[in-house]
């Protein structure tokens, strides 16, 4: 408090721009105490106004913007609650750090990281993260051989992965998936840079430096974070920073927030699954918006870097107007500059200089190629830390190969003929050439981005097969590409930037601070009162635009199957089971039961969905019944898939406990080609309850599964009597049996089984949810393909998609699940249909 008073007093006596934060002012003020009273009184009037204008107001403006940003993080919850809370803690810590002398800032950085970890993660994850990072920092600073250090760190990473997977004290005391993400943010790339520094630097690494480098809070919560170089980080931290650094910091945070909001609007309102692309217009639209979803990454980078700058670390920009790239090489240099620098410093330069005896040009080609091979592998490595498995598909290889080929070619050209610098004259021809190059480049990059975003190369190619031209107006969607080209050519020629610098509303404030503050206030206001609503409207578009319905079956048939008293009984155990009045008569399906023909039409592709209330739709009596499957059905009708019949056999309360029986008794009769089995978020809990109820009411319909439960040990008896004591391992054994049985039944109709994993409606901890991967692997062993939608709500508020009960989806949730399902499922349908048509053509030929 005393310090603050001195600083405030100092403001009134000093008229200078702030260097080194607020702290140096104190020291200078103390020195100036010897000034004579007369001098003070003379200088006071002279400095009072200017110091207030040059220090207090600019700082106040930054604090105002930070405060507004904190509110926006709270309201919009970008990416995840963890990320938003992390940003709030980190930004708040930055403001407090201004009160500290420069040498103590690193401590504040560490403190906000430690504190934030406990705000953001579960206690066990936070403790685990801090422990692993502390040990890593300690190992890095110990006086042992470099090779031992690397080995120890490698072992530590392996041990962390093992512990995260195996150690679980209880549901509340277990590592959540953010544990891998958080330590992955260090082990993935930052550790490489730190090790490189240690290997070549003569300076001794301090524990504080290593720890503060590891514990950058926003980065911990996001695997997509800038690869900040350790040397630059530590040098910048030690530098005497300027007030300008704080201003740049808040600018970056502001830009990041803006980008994340635009990303959210695009994702909610405009982006559609690749499976929905049917025409050239759809494709152009998809290309553009799919590429624009990269704003999520660039926005996050801006926020992470801006927050660091607010601690006085001068950070460079992470992206440089990548939409305006004019070549692949230019694109590589503009997008994710931190990555480019990482690759250049760690791989490109050292490799080139080791190989240059082979000749300059050849070394250049080989080195550039190596950079892209490593980039491709590193993306897979990063994927591991995010998703827990490596991912390197043909489409990834193809994507990187195409980009690498262009970059290598352009590198050689640039090396031969020198860099072509843009002629920024206002003559028509250079202007149009520049704009044209930007537009073409954007078309190429967005096309490649579609390949990268596709499920596979074949699903990417299948899009082009099904394209049709409804009318030439569809090419209107080329307009944004042309516009971006013209804008990219105009901006560097215009005087806009220098004008921005010159115009100032007030002498004491940057124009930018005023504009940012006004926009932030606007965003707070919009966010509070109408933004969310408008997004919901946009996101309901799929259902709204469906007016032209071409049904094979009517929507009202889309309902719970009748005469399923057995299943209903399970859901109303009080009235039925307590009195042992279970009606265990599941009628064989008839057409009139579900109002739908059992006979399949020639060439139709029948899909059966077996699920719970998550798929069937649910309400609590006074709400609309919402079902994501309904959205799927409507889309199929709208987009001209008349040959696909989507039959929903889902029943509220069903789970894997009932599927084999339902399959045998009803579904098989409809002879489906594809079977989708839902593994709902609460399927563990519901299955345990259902199996228990079946046993206790004497209606367990699977004699060959008896042996699983008739082991007369304490656990299985308890499991059957008390669902809450039902061990997960026993249930998983049952699941395995269920998959095996279902797979046998499905093979009778030559059908293909899929296991559908749905996203959690509200992301609250669900018992045993983390074991879904295990179930997925077991299903795969029995020939099930997976449709994994668990991440369909990523990037949305944690509660955006849930109904008040917390388990079921609201309208936004059902729409998102519909979209995500189509995105994953349509490529498979297309492939199947294509194979069929090929086979029918060949059969036709034979018949002729």
């Amino acid at each position, binding site marked *: 408090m005393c310090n603050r008073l001195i600083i405030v007093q100092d403001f009134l006596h000093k008229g200078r721009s702030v260097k080194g934060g607020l702290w140096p002012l104190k020291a200078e003020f103390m020195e100036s105490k010897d000034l004579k009273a007369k001098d003070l009184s003379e200088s006071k009037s002279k400095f009072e106004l200017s110091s207030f204008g040059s220090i207090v107001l600019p700082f106040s403006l930054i604090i105002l913007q930070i405060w507004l940003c904190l509110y926006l993080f709270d309201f919009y919850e970008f990416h995840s609650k963890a990320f938003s809370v992390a940003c709030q803690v980190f930004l708040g810590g930055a403001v407090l750090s201004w009160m500290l002398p420069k040498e103590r800032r690193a401590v504040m950085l560490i403190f906000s990281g430690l504190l934030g970890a406990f705000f953001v993660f579960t206690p066990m994850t936070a403790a685990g993260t801090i422990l692993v990072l502390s040990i890593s920092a300690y190992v890095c600073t110990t006086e042992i051989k470099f090779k031992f250090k690397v080995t120890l760190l490698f072992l530590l990473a392996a041990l962390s992965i093992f512990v995260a997977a195996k150690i679980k004290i209880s549901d509340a005391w277990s590592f959540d998936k953010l544990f891998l993400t958080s330590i992955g943010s260090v082990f993935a790339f930052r550790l490489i840079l730190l090790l490189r520094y240690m290997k070549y630097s003569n300076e001794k690494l301090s524990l504080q430096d290593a720890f503060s480098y590891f514990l950058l809070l926003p980065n911990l919560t996001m695997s997509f974070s800038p690869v900040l170089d350790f040397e630059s980080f530590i*040098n910048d931290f030690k530098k005497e920073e300027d007030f300008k650094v704080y201003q740049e910091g808040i600018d970056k945070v502001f830009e990041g927030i803006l980008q994340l909001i635009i990303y959210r609007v695009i994702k909610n309102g405009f982006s559609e699954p690749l499976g929905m692309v049917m025409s050239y217009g759809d494709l152009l639209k998809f290309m553009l918006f799919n590429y624009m979803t990269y704003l999520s990454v660039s926005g996050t980078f801006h926020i992470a870097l801006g927050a660091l700058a607010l601690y006085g670390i001068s950070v460079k920009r992470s992206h440089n107007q990548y939409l305006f790239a004019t070549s692949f090489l230019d694109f590589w240099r503009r997008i994710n500059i931190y990555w480019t620098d990482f690759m250049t410093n760690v791989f490109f330069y050292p490799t080139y200089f080791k190989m240059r005896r082979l000749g300059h040009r050849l070394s250049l080609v080989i080195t550039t190629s190596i950079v892209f091979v490593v980039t491709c592998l590193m993306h897979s490595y990063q994927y591991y830390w995010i998703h827990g498995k490596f991912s390197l598909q043909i489409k990834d290889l193809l994507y990187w190969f195409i980009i690498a080929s262009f970059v290598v070619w352009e590198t050689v050209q640039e090396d031969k003929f020198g860099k072509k610098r843009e002629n920024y004259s206002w003559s028509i021809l250079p202007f149009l050439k520049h704009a044209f190059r930007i537009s073409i480049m954007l078309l190429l990059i967005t096309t490649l981005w579609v390949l990268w975003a596709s499920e596979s190369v074949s699903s990417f190619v299948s899009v082009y097969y099904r394209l049709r031209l409804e009318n030439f107006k569809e090419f209107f969607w080329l307009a944004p590409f042309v516009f971006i080209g013209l804008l990219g050519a105009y901006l560097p020629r215009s005087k806009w930037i220098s004008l921005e610098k010159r115009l100032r509303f007030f002498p004491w404030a940057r124009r930018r601070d005023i504009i940012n503050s006004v926009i932030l206030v606007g965003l707070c206001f919009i966010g509070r009162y109408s933004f969310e609503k408008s997004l919901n409207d946009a996101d309901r578009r799929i259902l709204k635009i469906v007016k032209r319905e071409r049904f094979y079956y009517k929507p009202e048939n889309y309902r719970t199957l009748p005469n399923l008293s057995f299943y209903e009984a399970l859901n109303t155990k009080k009235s039925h089971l307590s009195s042992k009045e279970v009606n265990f008569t599941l009628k064989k399906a008839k057409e009139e039961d579900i109002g739908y023909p059992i006979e399949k039409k020639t060439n139709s592709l029948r899909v059966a969905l077996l699920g719970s209330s998550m798929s069937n739709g649910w309400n609590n009596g006074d709400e609309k019944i919402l079902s994501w499957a309904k959205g799927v059905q409507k889309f199929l009708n709208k987009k001209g898939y008349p040959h696909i019949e989507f039959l929903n056999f889902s029943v509220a309360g069903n789970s894997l406990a009932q599927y084999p029986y339902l399959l045998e008794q009803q579904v098989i009769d409809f002879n489906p080609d594809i079977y989708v089995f839902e593994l709902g978020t609460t399927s563990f809990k519901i299955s345990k309850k259902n199996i228990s109820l079946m046993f206790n009411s004497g209606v367990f319909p699977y004699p060959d599964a008896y042996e699983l439960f008739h082991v007369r040990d304490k656990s299985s008896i308890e499991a059957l009597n008390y669902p809450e004591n039902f061990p997960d391992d026993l249930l998983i054994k049952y699941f395995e049996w269920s998959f095996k049985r279902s797979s046998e039944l499905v093979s009778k109709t030559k059908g293909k089984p899929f296991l559908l994993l749905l996203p959690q409606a509200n992301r609250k901890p669900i018992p045993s949810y983390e074991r879904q991967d295990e179930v997925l692997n077991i299903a795969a062993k029995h020939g099930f393909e997976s449709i994994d939608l668990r991440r369909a709500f990523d990037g949305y508020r944690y509660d955006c998609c849930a109904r008040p009960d917390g388990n079921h989806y609201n309208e936004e949730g059902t729409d998102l699940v519909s979209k995500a399902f189509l995105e994953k499922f349509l490529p498979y349908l297309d492939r199947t249909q294509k194979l069929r048509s090929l086979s029918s053509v060949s059969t036709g030929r034979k018949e002729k």
Partner: protein
Amino acid sequence: MSQIKSKVKDYILENLLKGGKSIEITDHTHLLENGIVDSISTLHLVVFIEKEFQVKFEPHEVKTQNLQDLEHIEKFILNKVAEK
């Protein structure tokens, strides 16, 4: 401006910035962030420095921190010369 800085600056202006718009290069102008040099022209710049000042870059020494501006380049060259 020292002789080292002046020679490096002249090389950049004559060889790496030819045909482009005129850019004022001071001792602290960030060469990479301002697009004056890039990864490829850095290779040429390093070869020039090695020839002109008779110093040798180790592979790990070719990095942004050593080549970010004229000030850092001079510092690096002087260190190298002192090491000899």
